[in-house]
């Protein structure tokens, strides 16, 4: 591998304040080094990724700080491949599924090689304790393509399966990567727009879009003005927006803590005939992101929290991060933002959420390892978090 897909140092488990592991857990075996390694596989939209996360237990000593070695979680590898549709088109389930089927095995091999470079190729699977995969939500064909590979490997390597909710994966990766133990979460991507806050072992959805997701709105607009999908339509909108100068008033629709985007999409599609792409991209971003920041601020006021975590592909957008930062500063809080490695769908986030499930005995039997296109974030019982 020429460059590492997982370039960060290990993360200290103490900061995330999950429950201490139950002492009678015997449903998985650590590898020969005493580590628990989970391989996570993600492919619910047009990105397919395989991530390897290692949990190394600490020494749990509390006598002196100097003697205490904290438990750590370390991302050992996180390669990913994106299916980019031709300009002017969105990505369709069939082609996306084929793309994932083509790339999943090479990704698994690449991830294992990057994670365990000093082991012989045939020895690497023996270091993996379990396989996590995205149960949902997402697109049917792509989800299944990855799930079939996960099931096959779990049978081949004789390790348990862990079905993971895609949104929960984003959240757990976010908490781990940024050290934010209990933030208000803004989850914004091509398929999701939710404002989430944790309470009593569930990730509760405080606000969401009542029609389309913000990423979907941006992607569709990009198609209308003929922007390339490479590397992603949202990225190209962001670059054009930097050159916009005139703010064009657009519909701003916030209902309580919910948002609505279909009205603004219709409006901006019509305006494409009479305004420059730059000004439209600029105005669209300013309006859409203001709506998100407003609903996030309300959730913060409502729950009394002062930390915000932005996850999902749209979270890569620097202007959104900037606006959120400004809002949060005015309230005396902090924004936890990540870069494209973890904002965008990836395998390690599935492995991360999977490790927590594994530690609390929540493995998925083969007959239960189905996928579902609709899987609400609040349906998951986050048994690993303190109630």
């Amino acid at each position, binding site marked *: 591998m020429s460059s590492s897909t997982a370039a960060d140092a290990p993360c200290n488990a103490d900061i995330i304040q999950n429950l201490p592991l139950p002492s009678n857990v015997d449903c998985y075996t650590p590898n020969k080094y005493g580590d628990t390694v989970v391989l996570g596989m993600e492919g*619910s*939209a*047009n990105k397919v990724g395989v991530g390897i996360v290692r949990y190394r237990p600490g020494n749990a000593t509390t006598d002196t700080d100097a003697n205490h070695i904290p438990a750590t979680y370390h991302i050992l590898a996180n390669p990913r491949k994106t299916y980019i549709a031709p300009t002017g088109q969105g990505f369709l389930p069939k082609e996306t599924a084929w793309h994932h089927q083509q790339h999943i095995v090479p990704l698994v091999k690449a991830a294992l090689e990057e994670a365990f470079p000093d082991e012989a190729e045939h020895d690497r699977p023996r270091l993996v304790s379990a396989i996590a995969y995205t149960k*949902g*939500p*997402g*697109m049917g064909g*792509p989800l299944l393509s990855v799930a079939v590979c996960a099931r096959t490997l779990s049978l081949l390597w004789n390790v348990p399966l862990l079905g993971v909710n*895609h*949104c929960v994966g984003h959240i757990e990766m976010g908490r781990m990567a940024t050290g934010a133990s209990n933030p208000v979460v803004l989850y914004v*991507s*091509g*398929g*999701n727009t939710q404002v989430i*806050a944790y*309470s*009593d072992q569930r990730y*509760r*959805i*405080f*606000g*969401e879009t*009542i*029609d389309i*997701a913000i*990423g*979907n709105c941006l992607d569709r607009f990009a198609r209308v003005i003929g922007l390339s999908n490479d590397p992603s339509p949202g990225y190209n909108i962001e670059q054009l927006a930097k050159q916009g100068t005139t*703010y064009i*008033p657009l519909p*701003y629709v*916030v*209902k*309580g*803590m*919910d948002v609505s985007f279909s009205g603004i999409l219709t409006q901006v599609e019509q305006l494409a005939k009479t305004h420059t792409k730059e000004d439209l991209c600029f105005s669209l971003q*300013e*309006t859409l992101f*203001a709506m998100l*920041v*407003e609903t996030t*601020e*309300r959730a*913060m*006021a*409502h*729950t009394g929290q002062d930390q915000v975590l932005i996850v*999902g*592909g749209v979270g890569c957008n620097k202007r959104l991060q*900037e*606006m*959120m930062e*400004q*809002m949060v500063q*005015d309230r005396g809080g902090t924004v936890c933002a990540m870069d494209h490695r973890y904002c965008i*769908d990836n395998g390690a986030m599935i492995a991360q959420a999977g490790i927590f499930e594994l530690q609390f005995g929540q493995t998925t039997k083969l007959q239960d390892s189905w996928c579902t*296109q*609709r*899987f*609400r974030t609040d349906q998951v019982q986050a048994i690993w978090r303190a109630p």
Partner: protein
Amino acid sequence: MTVQIVFDPSPSSDWTLLSQGAEARVWRVPTNNDTNRSTTMEVDDDGSALKPPSFLVCKERFAKAYRHPDLDTKLTKSRCRSEARLLEKCVKMGLSHQVPAVVRVDPPKLFLEYLDGPNLKTFLQQRAKQQQQKRKRHRQEEEEEPHHQQTEIMEEKDSFSSIDFDDLAKRMGQLIGKLHNIDIIHGDLTTSNMMMMTTRVPTNDNEEIIEIDDNQPYRLILLDFGLGKSTTSVEEHAVDLYVLERALQSTHPELPTDFMESLLQEYATIREAKAREVLQRLEEVRKRGRKRECFG
């Protein structure tokens, strides 16, 4: 019946900051009326002489630096004016005792009647905590003396310690029903925007006062109409209810599961013929949330 209120609308050090929400700062503004009087607008037993209040509330929307200035000015001014207009409409059309009265509009500042009472959200959360602690105590006692006969623990007497959830649900249903009947949607129905007023209510009101323990009647007040709208749209009415439903689920998981049902039953009674369409649409809006393609 109107009352003359004399006060200085320009900010001064006499103003006390009551709270700072996501959108506005709320100040308590002293009036120049006789301060020996009570702080709320009261009607005497014979229905005469409205006493002028000693305080008013100033709701000051502040500029948000993260928004584009054009968008920001548009939002703060329009929400301020819209809120004032809606409150005035409520007062004119029979909801005068369940929303604050508007005294003066000075965008982005809005001067309103000063109402004092516990915020419903805080009240419910405190009560939930109390119940949790009580259950913990019960459990601890069970552990210590497992054969000890369960004794009644005297309820700590605070103002609303024995609130009837069914009653609360009905009151909410009634209030929202009346609001929708005058074609106004609130736009941000949550328990943070509701308040429980304990002042004795005027007897010339048609509303039945339902008493709860210790002869402490309360009435539900609705605040923060900044996202509200005048509309006859069935869709908007349904979404208004949906926003409340989700807010209750996410903020108050301790509420009984039939809370929303009781609320909607009362809502339907108030809305009569219009109820069926709205409730049907509500079901569709709920399905939209569950059926959404959530990929990416």
